[in-house]
């Protein structure tokens, strides 16, 4: 398979404008003849569904949650970047582009990233018009803050609930179209497979989670906006329902998987408290603007933080990275935390934690100012840990948070299956090997509001699509295949619960393919995962039936797919023998111990192609070229 990016050439600031002009348009009267199936209702899915419906297309939108408003975008806290330069601090579209390419450690397409930076300004306008209550200054104008990895204030926010407010904006736009009858919404509905006819994506098989019914949906194009796969690690900051099933099924039908090993570890999460832990909670890294991160200088120092004098504390980020200090990018901050904990200087239960201290900020600005900025985060911290973050430093530790990898897409956001698009976190996209803070919301909304609505029109206007209906033989066969898979899971009646397998898989992933990776660990994981998968299909216990609400069965299907996907992720990590962004290979470091990229051998996107059951997937490469941002070592000293 050839990975043709279709990225335009020419002056970078003109590429998207020129490309957009060259895209074919669908006549307004013809748009209502097309049906688009959108899976997922988060920022990308809801904004795409609403925008497509506004244009006149018929849309069917699916989500597994009980309401589209509950998609996991809602949990994003910190903010959304935009190159508005409202603060007059030297920001520009070009600077946002530059920061994102560099922050992504040069593993993203320049054309895509520049387009994202251009669109960032429209997103803010759009959200304000929808009534998103962004933070404002006393004069009534929009407020900004700075965010990890950048030196300008370009982040727009709504207290610590920016994702919630942006999602509700998109959800309300979607709800309006549902009310108008242009979008048919299918909540509590999970996509279980993709219908490909004559090489084109034409439909879905979904399961109604209330009745268990397997339904057939056909359309002219399919859009996957199904989020990230962090739950592969069992413990992550993702919602419990987040899963890889939609994009994994698409992969098995021929869509290439891009850079699956690029996972992001978030530095400011609340540490694990015990074996019962079901998920990890993130606190916005905006906390790093005012909080100072430190550990005791001495190993195993059991004193209370307030009893440790200033000269016996190690503010290790400020020490190692004087220019960026506590605001270094996420991957750098996470690895530094792991390093001090590995030295035995971690704090809290099990020594897996570092302090995030607000004492100086409270002294400087007063507690009310800190409360206004971060009040909800301090409350959240107190609820979970029973500790008051104003009075003693918070304890934080890194956790799996975001997937930069995902389905490979071209400049049109189309996968290698014609007619199948992938948006938001689900695609491999614009963040390269590391995503900067406050850029996920930007990308999800850029894809859904301002990119897909144009590019999908070009496909629909130029392709001659033969009619396909629900009774197409290929659809019948697909439904039977999905029913068989479900039946098999229910028939095992083994001894172990789905969760116990998921926990074990997560442990393998975290230990062998987590914050730092090496050949030995990855080889071990590649041996263990297939063994665990075999046991799963012999020994899992899924009770109840398929024709009712059955939450164990839902989980069982998702974990079955994680057990396949985990192997591909480890294979990708093994194959990429360089350190870049969130992917840190212990064999590839500079003499100072920083990550060492290998541009001579790995300046490409890895697009994995399914080769059939039990066969090693085929690695295809899309070379990356950098005409504007020079390939340099990412330095934050």
């Amino acid at each position, binding site marked *: 398979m050839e990975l043709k990016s279709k990225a335009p050439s020419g002056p970078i600031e003109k590429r998207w404008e020129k490309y957009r002009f060259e895209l074919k348009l669908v006549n307004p009267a013809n748009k209502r003849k097309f049906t688009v199936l959108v899976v997922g209702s988060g920022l990308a899915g809801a904004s795409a569904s609403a925008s497509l419906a506004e244009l006149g297309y018929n849309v069917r939108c699916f989500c597994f949650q009980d309401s589209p408003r*509950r998609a*996991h975008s809602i949990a994003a806290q910190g903010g959304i970047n935009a190159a508005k330069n409202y603060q007059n601090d030297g920001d520009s579209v070009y600077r946002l582009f530059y920061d994102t390419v560099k922050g992504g450690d040069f593993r993203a397409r320049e054309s895509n990233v520049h387009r994202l930076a251009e669109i960032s300004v429209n997103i803010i306008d759009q959200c304000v018009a929808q009534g998103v209550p962004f933070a404002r200054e006393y004069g009534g*104008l929009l407020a900004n803050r700075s965010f990890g990895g950048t030196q300008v204030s370009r982040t727009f926010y709504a207290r610590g609930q920016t994702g919630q407010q942006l999602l509700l904006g998109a959800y309300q736009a979607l709800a309006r179209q549902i009310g108008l009858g242009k979008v048919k*919404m299918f909540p509590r509905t999970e996509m279980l497979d993709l219908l490909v006819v004559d090489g084109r994506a034409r439909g879905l098989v979904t399961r109604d989670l209330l009745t268990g019914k397997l339904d057939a949906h056909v359309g002219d194009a399919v859009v996957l906006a199904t989020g990230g796969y962090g739950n592969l690690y069992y413990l992550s900051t993702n919602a419990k329902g987040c899963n890889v099933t939609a994009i994994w099924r698409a992969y098995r039908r021929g869509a290439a998987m891009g850079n699956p090993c690029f996972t992001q570890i978030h530095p400011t999460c609340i540490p694990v408290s015990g074996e019962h832990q079901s998920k990890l909670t993130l606190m916005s890294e905006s906390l790093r603007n005012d909080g100072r991160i430190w550990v005791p200088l001495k190993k195993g120092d059991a004193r209370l933080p307030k009893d440790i004098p200033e000269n016996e504390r190690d503010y290790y980020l400020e020490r190692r990275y004087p220019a960026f200090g506590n605001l270094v990018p996420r991957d750098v901050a996470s690895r530094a935390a792991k390093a001090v904990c590995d030295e035995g200087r971690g704090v809290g239960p099990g020594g897996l934690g570092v302090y995030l201290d607000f004492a100086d900020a409270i002294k400087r600005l007063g507690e009310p100012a800190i409360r206004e900025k971060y009040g909800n985060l301090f409350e959240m911290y107190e609820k979970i840990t029973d500790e008051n973050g104003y009075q003693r430093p918070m304890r934080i530790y890194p956790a799996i948070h975001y997937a930069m990898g995902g389905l490979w897409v071209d400049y049109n956001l189309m996968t290698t299956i014609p007619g199948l698009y992938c948006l938001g976190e689900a695609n491999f996209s614009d963040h390269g090997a590391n995503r900067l803070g406050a850029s996920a919301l930007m990308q999800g909304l850029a894809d859904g509001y301002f990119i897909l609505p144009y590019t999908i029109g070009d496909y629909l206007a130029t392709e001659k699509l033969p009619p396909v209906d629900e009774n197409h033989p290929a659809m019948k066969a697909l439904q039977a295949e999905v029913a068989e898979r479900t039946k098999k899971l229910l028939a095992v009646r083994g001894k172990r619960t789905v969760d116990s397998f998921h926990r074990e898989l997560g442990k393998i992933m975290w230990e062998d393919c987590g914050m730092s990776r090496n050949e030995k660990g990855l080889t071990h994981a590649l041996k263990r995962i297939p063994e665990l998968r075999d046991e799963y299909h012999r020994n899992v216990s899924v009770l109840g039936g398929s024709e009712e609400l059955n939450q164990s069965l839902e989980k069982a299907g998702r974990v079955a797919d994680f057990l396949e996907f985990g192997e591909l992720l480890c294979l990708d990590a093994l194959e990429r023998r360089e350190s870049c962004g969130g992917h840190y290979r212990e064999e590839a470091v500079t003499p100072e111990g920083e990550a060492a990229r290998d541009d001579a051998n790995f300046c490409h996107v890895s697009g994995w192609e399914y080769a059939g059951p039990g066969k090693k997937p085929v690695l295809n490469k899309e070379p990356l070229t950098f005409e504007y941002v020079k390939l340099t070592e990412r330095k934050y000293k």
Partner: protein
Amino acid sequence: MNVTLRVWRQKNAYDPGRFVVYPVADVSPDMSFLEMLDVLNEGLIGKGEEPIAFDHDCREGICGTCGLVIDGIPHGPRGATTTCQLHMRAFEDRAQITIEPWRAAAFPVVRDLVVDRSAFDRIISVGGFISAPTGSAPDGNALPVPKTASDLAMDAAQCIGCGACVAACPNASAMLFVAAKVSHLGLLPQGQPERRERVRKMVARMDAEGFGKCTNTLECEAACPKTISVEFIARMNRDYLVASLLERPEGKGAGGTG
């Protein structure tokens, strides 16, 4: 710690349902309430019994999916907390805890502790938005919004749509949910053009969905995990009154045939 649970079990919407008692041993005070239920469910599956169905997703108090009535209180004894953010340290050792689903005619039980809250989505889809099609927006700073208005709008906009207000209300009224959305949008200059129509339509839909009337018991505010104030209900009532008094036929459209 050890606790005894009385849990509402109901096979489906047609099953009358009943309480079933489950002892849970070795509970850590640091567990969340839902993690305690996870442990119970793992044990049930091990014994070949079907686990208890309950809704949950983000487990960080923001998605609004979870919601259990715990000892008669939606989201349990701790104020300003969703069920997923409630920890076992809020209970005494050897406590007996009763767990029920939301109870309201407009939220039918689906199974065990899972209810159908799609009525909320239908209320939003008739007017809980500002019509701003993609691409039509002016610059974000073209229209300054006073900080006080914006902050108050944000207080209302924090609603997570969990439905605890309905579950807490003796009349199963959805006034706080609807008022929060009406106020969020009505407080902002962008929300003015549709302000009257919005409140009329949303209230009509709320009534049609079978939610009860508001009799100012204020239980909704007490149960709200985001502490949304009942003052927004007063604000909505004012808007609704004005909208009803000023209801008049729409003007002719500005479009031509040209």
